[in-house]
């Protein structure tokens, strides 16, 4: 009985829905505030995301007539659920994630693709031309960044003694230092950061949601509560992708004791995730949006090559 209660608590409160969405919304709020200051303006307050999502929940729930209502309605929920599952698989508090399975790295990579697939389905199901074009661009971009992301992840797994379990990766890093500092894995770290920028649809690669060409891409027809769920899902994805990068490359949740005070692993983990988000914000503010063909060409040459080099170095050396 206690076991199930613990899972219910873990799913709904601690690393689950409440914690993840709160942290995600907060990160996005800070990201918007930093973007504001970088553009020499005041920018919205940090809790702006909570206000936006709250407002959207009060709006009327509309499904366009031309849309295929079943797919259109359940796409946001599906992506939200998938992201919460990923949060449970990640070792956030201690080296031991809530749900453990043998090869959870592969499960995570698969689960992280579900929101992308849901967005594509939503775009096609919304029945508006902008949605269709947005989704087709999303498919193309997915092939672009996924390659680099997976190769970099496997390079890390190979380095940590061919184990696909995150807890063993974290344990490996606890002994001999962060993965990012291993000489062989520096190219992979750069590759995964660029791939993360593509996965999160941040500016150099926000082609599926190019507001000046196709309004909001797949999300054009969404409004009210459904859009709120999509927004929360996106913010959680921001936190989750940063968390995956931290777990793979920057040591994951390591409890420290500074000056006698025992700091739980979560705090260190969140700070490192926040660092990745800030880095992504800086990239977002100094680049223009690429065209879809340029983005694909860029993804398949630069980051994939880097990831392949580090994989080769790890395998051979």
């Amino acid at each position, binding site marked *: 009985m206690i076991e199930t209660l613990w899972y219910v608590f873990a799913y709904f409160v601690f690393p689950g829905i409440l914690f993840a969405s709160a942290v995600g919304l907060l990160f996005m709020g800070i990201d918007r505030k930093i*973007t504001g200051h*970088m*553009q*020499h*303006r005041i920018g919205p307050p940090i809790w702006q995301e909570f206000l936006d999502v709250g407002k959207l929940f009060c709006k009327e729930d509309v499904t366009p007539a031309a849309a295929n209502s079943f797919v259109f309605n359940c796409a946001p929920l599906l992506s939200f659920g998938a992201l919460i599952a990923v949060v449970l698989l990640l070792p956030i508090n201690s080296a031991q994630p809530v749900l453990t399975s043998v090869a959870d790295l592969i499960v995570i990579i698969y689960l992280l693709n579900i929101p992308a697939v849901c967005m594509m389905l939503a775009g096609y199901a919304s029945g508006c*031309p902008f949605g269709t*074009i947005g989704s087709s661009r999303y498919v193309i971009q997915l092939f672009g960044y996924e390659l680099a992301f997976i190769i970099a992840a496997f390079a890390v797994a190979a380095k940590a003694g061919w184990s696909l379990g995150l807890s063993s990766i974290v344990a490996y890093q606890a002994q001999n230092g962060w993965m990012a500092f291993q000489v062989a894995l520096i190219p992979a770290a750069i590759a995964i950061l660029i791939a993360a920028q593509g996965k999160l649809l941040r*500016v*150099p690669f*926000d*082609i599926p949601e*190019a*507001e*000046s*060409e196709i*309004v909001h891409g797949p999300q054009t027809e969404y409004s009210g509560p459904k859009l709120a769920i999509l927004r929360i899902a996106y913010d959680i994805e921001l936190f989750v992708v940063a968390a995956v990068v931290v777990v793979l490359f920057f040591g994951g949740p390591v409890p420290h004791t500074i000056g006698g005070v025992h700091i739980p692993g979560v705090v260190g983990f969140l700070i490192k995730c926040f660092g990745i988000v800030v880095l992504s914000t800086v990239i977002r*503010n*100094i*680049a*223009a*949006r*690429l*065209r*879809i*063909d*340029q983005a694909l060409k860029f993804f398949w040459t630069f980051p994939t090559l880097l990831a392949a080099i580090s994989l080769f170095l790890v395998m051979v050396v």
Partner: protein
Amino acid sequence: MTFILPIGPQHPALEEPTHFRIEVKGEEIVGVDLRLGYAHRGIEKALTERSYAHGFYLSQRVCGICNATHSLAFTRAVESVAGVECPDRARYIRVIDGELERIHSHLLWAGIAAHEIGFTTLFMLLWRDREHALDMRELLFGHRIYATGTYLGGARVDIEQKHIPQLTRALAELEKSAKHYIDVCTSDRTVIARCSGVGVLTKKDARELCAVGPTARASGVDFDIRRDDPYAAYDEIRFDVVTERDGDVLAKVVVRLREILESVEIIRQAIDAMPKGPIRAKFPENVPENEAVGRVEAPRGELMYYVRSNGTNKPERVRIRTPSYANWPSIRPMLVGGTIAEIPIVVASIDPCFSCTDRVTIVDVKTGKARIMTKGELRGLQK
């Protein structure tokens, strides 16, 4: 299989309503068809029912951004019809008014272009620097946009000596930021990736399709009314016409930013060489039977007013040909061959000002049926 992609009349990329029907094969553009007329207000007809003094204000409202140039063109045509000579000091005030407007119009366009290619930071910073020019217009002429630098027979507001230091400081600020943005746009790899080689207008096309303004100058056509047909005080001011060669969107950005540097230089010379003296000559109530053409270099290109008077205080016929109207035919060679992603930036690259081009009355969006409102009904709505 080609399918028609409707862009507009309501679309975030277009700041004003127009409608493109773009024939698309996959992502590649095959055909372009254009439907104007959504913001047409029948101004040419309305101008013939107003006296010159009241018509002056209507000519200011043809375009939301370049209104000093519109009123200057109208004034130039009406003054040559009435045979009125505007005093020297007023000619310099008109130059300052026109050039300040060119600066804020180019910065506004550069910001929109940056937004089209998704570079939000550059958009925000460009519009931050545009405030210097707008503040100066507010300081010198009263309003940020609807300035009173020109009026029939001269200028309405004189430039006091105590504003000059503030003006020179703002000009230095504008010059520094214009230089900085030229350097950014020509060296930032993502901007170059999105702008160079996109929407190319060859010099032959530009000359044949009678393109005007920065759109033509970016393709190497050396055509500028301020030098070819000098008005106000441009004959006493030294400046050179900025041209580029390769005619793509990047060239159009650089041409406009370099023109800002020229404008800053022109204003400095105008301030120094401004003579003392009266700023307005008497404008007669009724104008004798005559016809004349007033041409001015608007921020977007050559702007022409043709005025014919018939002895009364109302013009008999006014023809307005705005620069965007001349640049519309050259959209087709620029767009065909490109991809969907390029449409907004290429359309924005000729800096279209739809309310300039259209002058038709309101389309009733609710019923979708176009209804022509007579002026009486319009007035009724306002009361």
